[in-house]
């Protein structure tokens, strides 16, 4: 028997961040025990394909898993799935699980992810109104996407539009109701929004912007039959998907008295206000050394990079989070890759043309490239990653000139 008990790290949340952290610790030969507690019945899985290939039925469930069970077994990672954590007791450094068990920790990592923003409107509790966050959600939605059905999607963000693309291809009559005056308003610029609006309309989607939902009508037996808007329009529906954004899942952290501010507040080493508790992924409002202010991001890149920062701290290396975030979306044959955050840009440059179905927008602030949205243009994305990370100040004319090799710009 070892004389000294090794450290126990418990990860709450079996999502991308939690799963990544556990296996990164194993890769780094972390000497302590690692346990993951997750409230879904699945191994840690990737969420981006849920509204893409998995919803379309192009990939099987096992392709979603970050790793097979065998990998966790070999690495000695203990998984407790389908189990909610009810409470964190910071004094005794233990968790109360929904199955009644207590679980002691030396280090705790909250990777609790997000909860859906719920639309409250008359009729919003009718049957046939879906949300999309989990594998189970997709398994309920997918059978509804059949020819002849009428799907109304509330919210023209990434997820709503990805679902629209898949549904319309399956012969579903699709309407998208976006409350703002353009789709993906929060995450991209007007040129990109306009391109996607056109592509969806060309594909047969009835896409409405400035359309605010007033309520849902009942078919007489408790199932949704239509969505009404504030302007008095009515859209028939056999199925509704509400995708109007998310909120960070901070309930456990807040109840435990950890600092929260639209996200669990963490520093660049992913430490919360309790030195033995860390938080990573979508649930955090975090410091990233690349940016001067705290960010809350909904992104795999952030989940993975924060997991790496936590792993480095737990292994005594203390590598701060300083990576530039990136994102992607697939709709029809369009692959959009994005890097950086365009908030606060004062200029933008287009490279290529939307009419050619391949272009990129470079967003600049004081001449510095801060973000790139690349549509079917992986070169601009890859080059953009380097330009943003280097805080490059390339000449605008060269940036827009497709005959100029982006690798030559600084």
């Amino acid at each position: 028997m070892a004389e000294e008990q090794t450290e126990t790290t418990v990860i709450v949340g079996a999502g991308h961040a939690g799963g990544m952290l556990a296996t990164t610790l194993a890769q780094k030969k972390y000497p302590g025990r690692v346990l993951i507690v997750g409230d879904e019945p699945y191994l840690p899985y990737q969420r981006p394909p849920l509204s893409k290939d998995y919803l379309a039925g192009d990939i099987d469930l096992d392709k979603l898993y970050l790793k097979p069970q065998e990998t966790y077994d070999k690495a000695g990672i203990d998984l407790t799935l389908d189990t909610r954590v009810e409470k964190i007791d910071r004094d005794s450094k233990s968790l109360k699980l929904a199955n009644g068990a207590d679980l002691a920790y030396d280090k705790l990592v909250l990777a609790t992810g997000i909860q859906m923003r719920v639309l409250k409107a008359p009729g919003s509790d009718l049957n046939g109104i879906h949300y999309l966050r989990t594998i189970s959600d997709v398994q309920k939605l997918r059978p509804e996407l059949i020819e002849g059905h009428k799907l109304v999607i509330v919210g023209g963000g990434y997820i709503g539009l990805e679902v629209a693309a898949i549904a319309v291809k399956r012969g579903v009559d699709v309407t998208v109701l976006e409350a703002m005056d353009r789709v993906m308003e929060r995450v991209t610029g007007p040129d990109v929004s306009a391109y996607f609006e056109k592509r969806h309309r060309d594909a047969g989607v009835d896409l409405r912007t400035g359309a605010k939902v007033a309520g849902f009508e009942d078919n007489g037996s408790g199932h949704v039959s239509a969505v009404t808007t504030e302007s008095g329009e009515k859209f028939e529906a056999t199925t509704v998907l509400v995708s109007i954004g998310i909120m960070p899942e901070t309930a456990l952290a807040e109840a435990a008295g950890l600092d929260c501010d639209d996200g669990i507040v963490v520093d660049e080493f992913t430490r919360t206000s309790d030195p033995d508790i860390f938080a990573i992924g979508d649930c955090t409002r975090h410091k990233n050394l690349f940016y001067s202010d705290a960010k809350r991001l909904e992104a795999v890149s952030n989940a993975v990079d924060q997991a790496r920062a936590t792993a480095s701290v737990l292994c005594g290396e203390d590598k701060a989070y300083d990576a530039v975030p990136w994102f992607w979306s697939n709709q029809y044959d369009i692959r959009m890759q994005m890097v950086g955050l365009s908030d606060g840009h004062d200029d933008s440059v287009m490279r290529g043309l939307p009419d050619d179905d391949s272009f990129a927008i470079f967003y600049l602030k004081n001449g510095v490239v801060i973000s790139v949205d690349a549509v079917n243009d992986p070169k601009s994305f890859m080059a953009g990653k380097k330009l943003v990370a280097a805080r490059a100040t390339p000449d605008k004319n060269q940036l827009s000139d497709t005959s100029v090799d982006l690798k030559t710009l600084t």
Partner: protein
Amino acid sequence: MPKITFIQPSGETQEVDATTGVTIMEAAVDAMVPGIEADCGGNCICATCHVYVEKEWLSKLPDPEGDEEAMIDYTADPQDNSRLTCQLQITDELDGIVLHVPESQY
């Protein structure tokens, strides 16, 4: 069951038992091969599953095309034998393939 050998920049080697029908990236990730980051999960978005293929095996692989070809060029240190493992399906013909993990994926 095809075997894949990954050689780290340090010279350390790791042999991975792979199954056909998955990608080399998936086999590497499942076996936790260091340096195959695969941040995007195999969607050919991030180019962090880059390897250098031992020259004698290059001809057994289909040529890179589309996004893979476009993105390889922008990895940290692209070479003639650079590939993204998320785009390489494992087949019986690849039994014994040797791949070199780059110094960095970023």
